[in-house]
C-alpha cells in the first residue's frame, strides 16, 4: 500500500520525517518495501516559459521553440506537442536529464537539422499521469526557473507498506497512523464524524436476503449533486497513492477506502429499477464490471441487485451500468459489511483483485460502517453539493465482542522479555485495548473493534513486544546436554548420504530435477499415480513414477549443448500409488570412456557401466551385493535384452540396463539404473572376527562349455557352492565364442581361489574339489573343456 507522507500527516501530528516513520513502521511489523519521493526523481525539471514558437523548416508537425528556463539566455528546443505556443508556461528538462516516462537521458541533438537543447515535457513523460496529448501547461504566474516538483507540491515521500494479512486495520492510512501514534511517533488526529441533517427519507428501499454473505447494508442518498472533478488536493493524494482521480464522488469512495480502509459504493439512482437487495447471484446472471470486463456469476456469490439486474459484486467490484457520471444528480452511497471468507472465495473464483476485496477479505472494522458512511456522505456533499437523506440501515455488522483473559507474566514466559505489568497495561491501552484488572492479578482485556486478528494471550504478547521493541529480546542459549552432541542422523539418512558420496566419487554429477513431469513421459516409465489438478504447464503435470525421465531430459539438454559424456544422478522420491519411495537414479549417456591415445576409440556407455555404478551405490547403501541375483529383463523402459533387476530374495533392490532405444531417441546409447533405497535391508554392521589363514591360497582355473542361454551368474554360483568351506573366490576371466566352440554354446573360463584353513591341501584334496566343481557345473549343462 502506498502511503504518501502528506496523507499520513492528515491523521498524525508528527515532526518525524519519512525515514523515522519508515523505521518505526518496520519495528511495528508494518514492512516498508521502499520510500520514493517524486521530487528527488524530478529534481532537474524546471518551470519554463515558451518565448517564441515557429514551424520547423523541415517538418510540419514539429515546432522550434525558444524557451526561457530562467538560466539567463533563451534555449532552443524542438517540440512536437500540438499545444506548444508562445507564452505557454510548462516544464523543461535540460540536456543530461533522465526522463522517467520514456526512460531516456536527454542529449543535445539535431532534429531534422535543427539543434534541440532539451525538452518540454508531458505529464506522462514525468510519470505524473497518462496525458501525453500535449506538454504540461502551468498557470501564468508559475515561477520560471524554479524546480517544478517542489513548486507542484510533489515533495511528498511515498512509503510503500506491505501489510500482513492479519492487519486489516492497517489497510487504511488512518490505521497506520493509529499504530504509529501508539508507538509514540505523534498524536493521532481522529476525524470528527459529522452530524448530518437529513432532508428526506432514503428513496431507495434496501434489503438483505443473503445475511451470511452480507450481514449489514447501510445506505444514504444524496440528491442534486454536481459530480465534477475533485479539488486538486484530493487528486494529488490519490495520484500519489497510486490511484487515478475519476470524479469527486468516485474519488471520495477511494479516499475512504485508502484513508480509512472503508470501501463504499456509489450508485446512480437514475439507473436503478426499484430497491437494492443483497442476495446470492442467480444462475446465468452476469455483470459488466467497472473494469470493463463481464463476469459470469453463480449462486455462491453475494451481489447487490435491483429488481432488474445485478449492480455490484458485493464488496469486490461495482457495475458499469449504475456507475456515476458527470450527468449524475442523485446517488445512493452504500456502506456494507461482507463476509471475509465469501469475499475471498468469490474474488478467487472470478480472479478479481481490487482494493475493496483486499479490505473486505481481511475484515473491515464493524464499528465503522455507519460512521464511515456519514464521513463519506458529508465529504461528497461538501464537494458536490446536494441534500442528504436519512440513513437506511438493514442488518448489523457482527460486533467484535472479545475479552481475553491475560496474565501479564505470559509476556515474559513467551518472549523472554520482562516488561513490567504497568508498562504492558499502558501499551495495550495505547493500542485501544480496554484493560480491566489489578496490576498483580489476571486481566480482562477487551479487544478494539478494528483488531479482529487479536484472539488470545499470545496475540497480546505480540502487541506488547512489538511496541516495546523486538530488539530488546535478548538471545538466551538453548540448554545443552552435557558432553559431545549425540549423533542424530537416522539409518536412512546415513544411507542416503553414503550413496550420494559414493556416486559423486565415481564421477557422477548430482542433479536435482522436477518432481513433476509430463504425463506422456510418465507413461513411458510406468505411468503416473498422481496427477496435479492445476499444473503450471503440461510439462509439469504429474508426479514422477521414476527419476529417469528427468535425468534423461537433462542428458538430452546437455548433449544438445555439446557435452560428449553425461553422468548424472539424483536422490529423490518416486511418487507411487502406494507412497513416496526414496530412490537413487543414475544415467550415463554418451562416452563412458573418451577416445584416448592409451585406450583407443571412445567407448559408449553400456549396461555394465550402469550395473557397476548401481552395485557400488548399493554397496554404499549397505546392501549385501555378493548375495544379489540378477533377474533379466528389467522394466519395459529398458532394452529388453540388456537390462535386469538386482534382487535379494523377493526384494527388488535395483533395476539397470540400457534404456530402450525408443526412449533414448537422439541421445543415442543411454545406460541407467534406479536404486530402491527403502528395499535395501538394514546392514547387520557386525564384522566377523579377524581370522586370517596362515596357509597359502591355491588357485585353479576351469574352462566350461555352456549353453549360450545359461546366465554366467548361475555357473559362478554353482562353482562357489561346490565347497563353501574351501572356495574363497570365484572369478570369470574369459568369455569366448568362435572357433572351437560349438554353435549355441559359449566358453566360460573361471578362476577359483581356494583358501585352506586347517592344513595344506594335498593332491587328493584338489582332485576332489575339481570333481565337485565339475559335478556342480554339469548340473547346469556345463561341460569341462578338454
Amino acid at each position, binding site marked *: 500500500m502506498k502511503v504518501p507522507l502528506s496523507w499520513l500527516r492528515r491523521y498524525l501530528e508528527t515532526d518525524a520525517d519519512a525515514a523515522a516513520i519508515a523505521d518505526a513502521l518496520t519495528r511495528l511489523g508494518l514492512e516498508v518495501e521502499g520510500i520514493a519521493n517524486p521530487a528527488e526523481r524530478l529534481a532537474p525539471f524546471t518551470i519554463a516559459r515558451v518565448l517564441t514558437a515557429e514551424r520547423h523548416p523541415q517538418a510540419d508537425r514539429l515546432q522550434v521553440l525558444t524557451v526561457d528556463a530562467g538560466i539567463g539566455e533563451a534555449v532552443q528546443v524542438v517540440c512536437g506537442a500540438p499545444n506548444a505556443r508562445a507564452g505557454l508556461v510548462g516544464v523543461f528538462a535540460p540536456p543530461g536529464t533522465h526522463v522517467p516516462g520514456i526512460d531516456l537521458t536527454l542529449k543535445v541533438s539535431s532534429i531534422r537539422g535543427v539543434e534541440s537543447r532539451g525538452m518540454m515535457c508531458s505529464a506522462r513523460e514525468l510519470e505524473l499521469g497518462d496525458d501525453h496529448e500535449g506538454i504540461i501547461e502551468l498557470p501564468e504566474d508559475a515561477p520560471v526557473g524554479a524546480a517544478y516538483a517542489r513548486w507542484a507540491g510533489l515533495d511528498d515521500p511515498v512509503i510503500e507498506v506491505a501489510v500482513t494479512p492479519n492487519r486489516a486495520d492497517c489497510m487504511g492510512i488512518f490505521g497506520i497512523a493509529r499504530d504509529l501514534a501508539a508507538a509514540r511517533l505523534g498524536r493521532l488526529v481522529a476525524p470528527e464524524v459529522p452530524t448530518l441533517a437529513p432532508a428526506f427519507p432514503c428513496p431507495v428501499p434496501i434489503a438483505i436476503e443473503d445475511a451470511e454473505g452480507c450481514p449489514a447494508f447501510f445506505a444514504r442518498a444524496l440528491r442534486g449533486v454536481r459530480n465534477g472533478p475533485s479539488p486538486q488536493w484530493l487528486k494529488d493524494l490519490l495520484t500519489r497513492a497510486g490511484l487515478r482521480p475519476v470524479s469527486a464522488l468516485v474519488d471520495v469512495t477511494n479516499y475512504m477506502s485508502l484513508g480509512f480502509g472503508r470501501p463504499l459504493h456509489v450508485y446512480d439512482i437514475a439507473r436503478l429499477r426499484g430497491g437494492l437487495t443483497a442476495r446470492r447471484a442467480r444462475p446465468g446472471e452476469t455483470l459488466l464490471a467497472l473494469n470493463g470486463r463481464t463476469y459470469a456469476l453463480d449462486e455462491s456469490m453475494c451481489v447487490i441487485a435491483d429488481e432488474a439486474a445485478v449492480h455490484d459484486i458485493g464488496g469486490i467490484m461495482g457495475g458499469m451500468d449504475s456507475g456515476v457520471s458527470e450527468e449524475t444528480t442523485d446517488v445512493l452511497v452504500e456502506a456494507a459489511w461482507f463476509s*471475509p471468507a465469501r469475499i475471498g472465495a468469490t474474488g478467487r473464483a472470478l480472479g478479481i483483485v481490487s482494493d475493496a476485496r483486499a479490505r473486505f477479505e481481511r475484515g473491515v472494522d464493524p464499528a465503522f460502517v455507519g460512521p464511515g458512511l456519514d464521513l463519506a456522505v458529508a465529504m461528497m456533499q461538501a464537494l458536490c453539493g446536494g441534500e442528504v437523506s436519512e440513513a437506511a440501515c438493514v442488518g448489523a455488522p457482527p460486533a467484535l465482542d472479545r475479552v481475553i483473559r491475560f496474565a501479564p507474566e505470559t509476556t515474559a514466559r513467551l518472549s523472554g522479555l520482562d516488561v513490567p505489568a504497568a508498562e504492558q497495561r499502558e501499551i495495550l491501552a495505547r493500542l485501544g485495548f480496554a484493560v480491566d484488572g489489578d496490576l498483580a492479578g489476571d486481566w480482562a482485556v477487551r479487544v478494539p473493534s478494528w483488531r479482529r486478528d487479536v484472539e488470545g494471550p499470545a496475540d497480546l504478547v505480540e502487541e506488547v513486544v512489538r511496541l516495546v521493541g523486538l530488539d530488546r529480546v535478548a538471545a538466551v542459549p538453548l540448554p545443552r546436554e552435557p558432553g559431545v552432541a549425540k549423533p542424530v542422523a537416522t539409518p536412512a539418512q546415513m544411507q542416503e548420504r553414503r550413496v550420494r558420496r559414493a556416486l559423486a566419487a565415481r564421477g557422477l554429477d548430482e542433479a536435482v530435477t522436477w518432481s513433476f513431469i509430463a504425463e506422456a513421459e510418465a507413461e513411458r516409465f510406468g505411468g503416473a499415480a498422481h496427477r496435479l489438478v492445476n499444473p503450471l504447464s503440461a510439462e509439469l503435470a504429474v508426479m514422477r513414477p521414476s527419476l529417469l525421465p528427468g535425468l534423461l531430459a537433462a542428458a538430452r539438454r546437455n548433449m544438445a549443448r555439446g557435452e560428449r559424456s553425461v553422468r*548424472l544422478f539424483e536422490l529423490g522420491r518416486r511418487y507411487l500409488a502406494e507412497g513416496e519411495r526414496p530412490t537413487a537414479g543414475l544415467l550415463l549417456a554418451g562416452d563412458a570412456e573418451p577416445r584416448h591415445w592409451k585406450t583407443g576409440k571412445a567407448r559408449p556407455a553400456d549396461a555394465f557401466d550402469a550395473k557397476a555404478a548401481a552395485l557400488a551405490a548399493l554397496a554404499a547403501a549397505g546392501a549385501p551385493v555378493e548375495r544379489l541375483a540378477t533377474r533379466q529383463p528389467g522394466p519395459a523402459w529398458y532394452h529388453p535384452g540388456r537390462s535386469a533387476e538386482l534382487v535379494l530374495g523377493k526384494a527388488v533392490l535395483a533395476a539397470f540396463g540400457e534404456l530402450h532405444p525408443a526412449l533414448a531417441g537422439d541421445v543415442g546409447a543411454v545406460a541407467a539404473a534406479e536404486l530402491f533405497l527403502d528395499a535395501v535391508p538394514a546392514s547387520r554392521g557386525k564384522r566377523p572376527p579377524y581370522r586370517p589363514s596362515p596357509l597359502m591360497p591355491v588357485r585353479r582355473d576351469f574352462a566350461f562349455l555352456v549353453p549360450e542361454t545359461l546366465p554366467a551368474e548361475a555357473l559362478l554360483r554353482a562353482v562357489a557352492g561346490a565347497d563353501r568351506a574351501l572356495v574363497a573366490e570365484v572369478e570369470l576371466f574369459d568369455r569366448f565364442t568362435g572357433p572351437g566352440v560349438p554353435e549355441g554354446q559359449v566358453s566360460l573360463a573361471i578362476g577359483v581361489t581356494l583358501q585352506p584353513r586347517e592344513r595344506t591341501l594335498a593332491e587328493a584334496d584338489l582332485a576332489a574339489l575339481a570333481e565337485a566343481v565339475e559335478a556342480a557345473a554339469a548340473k547346469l549343462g556345463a561341460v569341462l573343456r578338454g
Partner: protein
Amino acid sequence: MSEDVDALRARHLAELAAAQTLEAVEAVRVAALGRAGTVTALLRALGRMPAGERLAAAPRVQALREELSAAIEARRRTLAAEALALRLEAERMDMSLPVPPEPQGSIHPISRVMDELAEIFADLGFAVAEGPEIEDDWHNFTALNIPPEHPARAMHDTFYLAGDPPGRVLRTHTSPVQIRTMTGGRPPIRIIAPGRVYRSDSDATHTPMFHQVEGLVIDRDTHMGHLKWTLETFVKAFFGVDDVVLRLRPSFFPFTEPSVEVDVGCSWEGGRLQVGGAASWLEILGAGMVHPRVLANCGLDPAEWQGFAFGCGIDRLAMLKYGMTDLRAFFDADLRWLRHHGFRALDVPTLSGGMAP
C-alpha cells in the same frame, strides 16, 4: 710359483676387463676357476707340494682365487647394470603424455547446504525429521491454523492432486513436518526438517519446486530469546562469520504467535554479499512462537508446552552463501553449472573441518 700367481692374476684380470658380455665373463671364470681352470690347477698342485712349501704358497693361491672370484662377480654386476641401463634407455616413454581423464563428479549445492544444516543443528541437539511431500489438507493447512478461507489455500499458490482421497496437496512448506513430529511423539522436541516444497509460482526468483528447512523446538519454557540465540548461532556457523547481527521484525504467520521475520545484517561491497555488520539488511527467514492452537491441534496443552518454529529457503541460503543468482539453474542439471557450483564428494561438512569447503 710366485711368478705363476702374479702372471695368472694379471692375465685373467686383463681378460675380465676386456670381457664385454656375460658370456665372455663366464669364459674367463671357466678358464680360471673352472674344473680345468688355471687357478684350479694351482690349487690342485698345492696338494702335491711338500708341507713347508705348501704353507708358503697356499695363502697366495687362495688369495688369487678369492680375488678373481670377486673380480668376476664385480664384472658381472657391472655388465648387468650396463645391460639394464641400455634396456631401460630403450624403454623410455614420453612422460608428458596425458593420462586418461577421470570424471570428477559433484554434489549438488542443495545437498551440500542440507548437510551443513544437519551438522550445525546436530551440535545443538536437533534431529533431522522428514515427512511426505504429498500431504493432506489437515497437515498442510488446518492443523497449522490456516483456515479453509485462507488465501494461501487458493489455487494460485497450492498444487492440488486429482483423485482419491480428496483434498491432497503438494506440501506448500515443510511446516506439516512440525505437525507430524508433535503428533508422533512427546516433547521435548528439537528437530529440523529439510525437503522439497511446491508452490504454483514461476519466475527468476520463484520456481514451482524449491527447498525449505523447518526448525521446531518444544519444551516447557522455550521462549523467543532461545529462538534468537538459536538463529544467531546457526547463522554464525553457517556463514562462518562471528560478527552476525540479526534483526527481528514483527510479522505474521498463521502458525506462530508472536511471529517475526528475521533479517541478517550484511553489506554489498563490490556487488558481492558479505554477511556481517548492519550496513544493510537481508530477509532470511520467518519464525515465531508456535501458535497455541497449533499445539492444541497436535494434542499438546499450550499451558504446559511451548516453543518456537522457523522456516527458511534452502536454495536461498545456498545462493546467499555460494553466490548463485538464478534459482532456476538449480533444477536445470546443466553440467557446466553443476561442475562450477557443485562440491567434491569428499568435501563433507564437519564441525572440526568447518562449513566452508
